[in-house]
């Protein structure tokens, strides 16, 4: 009897918490389907649901272009991080060569540098080299990640040397060994790294905000921030924009949630 009451309480608290976590999203979607006149009503389900906010946003602004920009930038950066970080992690874990320790310590020490400290020189560099307002300008700070190198090195270390030596005796080239023998051994860590990198670049705000100048080059977060502050009070439009930038990622997350959460545990605990 006492036990049943206790477990009811636990479920009750968890459900209440879940509703608090979900409410902002529900309210966002609800507002995005409301007419301007209805925006300040408390109805969760709009009386006269309308898609005119979405039509307006897609027709009058560059939201779709911003979406595309974010997608391109996140995909290219993630690919680059995946390639370089696994390669460097593998080399630092599995080879000994002159200069190895210096390189490792130097890369590791960059983890301590806050981005805010780098944006000023990056900005000066970008103006100097004409990178302002270009995809490369947005992407260049993130094409290799020290955290990823550190992570991949940790996982590469657990690959048995015998496995690599066996491949060498079979006459495989070093690069072939890396691709065909090493990478399959660290696939879970690699996919976690890709997920992190994609999320990080998709949601990045500070650096893109500084380096983007024209409306058409904006990424989704930067576009949404500008659009929202230019349209203060038009909450139905702002919420439609927020929905466009939030929902696709949530859907992808729901498909891959098991792997994503596993990835967080895998990398977060290292």
């Amino acid at each position, binding site marked *: 009897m006492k036990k049943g009451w206790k477990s009811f309480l*636990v479920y009750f608290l*968890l459900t209440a918490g879940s509703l608090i976590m979900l409410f902002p999203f529900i309210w966002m979607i609800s507002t995005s389907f409301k007419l301007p006149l209805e925006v300040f009503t*408390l109805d969760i389900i709009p009386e006269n649901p309308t898609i005119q906010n979405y039509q307006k946003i897609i027709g009058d602004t560059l939201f779709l272009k911003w979406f595309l920009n974010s997608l391109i930038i996140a995909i290219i950066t993630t690919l680059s991080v995946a390639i370089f970080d696994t390669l460097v992690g593998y080399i630092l874990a599995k080879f000994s060569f002159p200069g190895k320790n210096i390189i490792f310590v130097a890369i590791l020490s960059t983890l301590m540098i806050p981005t*805010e400290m780098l944006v000023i020189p990056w900005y000066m560099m970008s103006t100097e080299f004409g990178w302002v307002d270009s995809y490369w300008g947005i992407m260049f700070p993130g094409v290799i990640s020290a955290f990823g190198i550190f992570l991949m090195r940790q996982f590469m270390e657990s690959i048995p040397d015998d496995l690599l030596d066996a491949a060498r005796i079979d006459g495989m080239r070093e690069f072939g060994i890396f691709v065909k023998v090493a990478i399959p051994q660290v696939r879970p860590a690699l996919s976690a790294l890709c997920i992190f990198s994609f999320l990080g670049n998709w949601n990045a705000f500070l650096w893109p905000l500084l380096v983007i100048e024209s409306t058409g080059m904006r990424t989704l*977060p930067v576009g949404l921030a500008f659009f*929202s502050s230019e349209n203060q009070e038009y909450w139905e439009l702002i919420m439609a924009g927020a929905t466009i930038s939030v929902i696709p990622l949530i859907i992808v997350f729901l498909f891959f949630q098991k792997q994503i959460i596993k990835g967080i545990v895998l990398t977060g605990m290292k």
Partner: protein
Amino acid sequence: MSNLELNTKVEPKRTKKRHVTLKQQKYIFIYSCLFVPVVFFLSIRLLPMLYTFNVGFHEWKILSPEQPFVGLSNYTSLFQDEVFLRALQNTGIYVLVGVIGQMILGLIVSLLLQRVNRFVGLFRVIYFIPYITSAVAISWIFKWILMNNGILNNILLNLGFEKQLFLQDPNQAIYLVIGTIIFQGLGFQIVIFLAGLENIPNMFYEAADIDGANGWQKLSKITLPLLNPTIVFSAVIATISFLQSFTQIENMTGGGPLNSTMTIVYYIYELAFQKFEMGYASAATVILFLIIFLITLFQMKVLTKRFDY
């Protein structure tokens, strides 16, 4: 010594030659793969950092042709700058309230989740959703909820309370921004805590049951001490991320009202990219760097300690 041995040993010529070429092949592989990353870390991370140190010693306005060396004067003016001191103090509040709030809430939810058998996956997904979404979107959603005529004030009115100023109130705004940041970080915290809880062997609890321990004793004598490494680890991560709070502030309050939500990072952004005082802003980033550096040192000291029970 080893060289001598190598020279005196008479080995068949062919194998020696093959050995050398393999070794060369290996080095070519290593250095050609490392070339781009090393250039990257030098030119995009380490040199820019040194450059920022340098800029911090100059009066460096982006439009003026001369950038005179001024020594430590940027630093001395920073510590006489009321806004910077306010930002420093606020950043302390962000870290303290934010980290403690996030850890306590994360701990409560993960302890609750640990007690249920059904729907664990569903709950975990729900609590995790904000973590993957864009901080800009979340900031605007919360701004909308907290508006003067937004839903929260409407509910308060309907319940017979007074309307609140929320983000326009210098006393409330900072805590609402912190709450928004916690809302987004909570899912990550829960996942990490749940993993830590899973690592605690069941036999400790079984032994405690035999000894007749109650729930509170089990929590304070088994769960919390054994979870300690996880708690310290996530406290450090959370501290560094709260130290760098920016996105929510830029979108929700712009540092106001009356600088009450201003942080070091937001002030750096204002100085460098709205007032173009690069030298002064760089000096402020150096101070931020030193704070993070000290926390990292602390982290290395504490986290490399072995936790044995």
